[in-house]
């Protein structure tokens, strides 16, 4: 399984990410997820979210999750980018891509990864008013 993990302070460049996708001839499904910063947090208007990460542990925990994905599903490629620092409202903080033979496993794996990430990957949010 091809893995790519990026924790970055730079804005996400979706077009550049797409141009680097590799896809073998047996693959039938690509699922992307983008998490976008919304304009409200706990009912209050915000202008941005500041993401803080314990970076070494983030990398390690994502790799444990990727190991588990590889056991559960026949995934060819997982790529994930998470921004840290200040991310403005309406900008993406998270981009995930899963490539697999069939759509069922691609959707299942992508959703599982995001759910698990929100349980174990040490990244925290702080609203900016």
């Amino acid at each position, binding site marked *: 399984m091809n893995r790519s993990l990026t924790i970055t302070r730079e804005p996400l460049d979706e077009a550049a990410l797409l141009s680097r996708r590799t896809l073998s001839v047996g693959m039938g499904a690509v699922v992307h997820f983008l*998490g976008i910063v919304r304009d409200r947090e706990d009912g209050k208007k915000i202008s941005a979210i500041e*993401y*803080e*990460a*314990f970076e*070494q*542990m983030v*990398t*390690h*925990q994502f790799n444990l999750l990727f190991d588990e994905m590889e056991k559960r599903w026949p995934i060819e490629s997982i790529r994930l980018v*998470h921004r840290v620092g200040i991310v403005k409202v309406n900008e993406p*903080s*998270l981009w995930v891509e899963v490539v697999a033979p069939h759509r069922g496993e691609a959707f299942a794996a992508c959703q599982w990864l*995001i759910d698990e*990430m*929100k*349980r*174990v*990957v*040490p*990244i*925290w*949010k*702080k609203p900016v008013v």
Partner: protein
Amino acid sequence: MRISVQFYSYFKDLTGCAETTESLADGSTLGALHEQLIKKFPKLAAMKKSTLIAVGVDYQTRDYVLNDGEQVSLFPPVQGG
């Protein structure tokens, strides 16, 4: 033994610091360290049950036996994405 402790997210606000060093008897557990930290930084008490604790880059439970020089991290529930 001496254990270096790091705080993340609003735990830094609760303790007023990002890092501290604790002295503990050899063979002490992570649970004992946590109690010692709550005595030193009482605002951590309210978060006791939801506190996540890592040694190095792995999560560990309260019965984990610490070794001299290990790096411990305490933080609230994670919220990436």
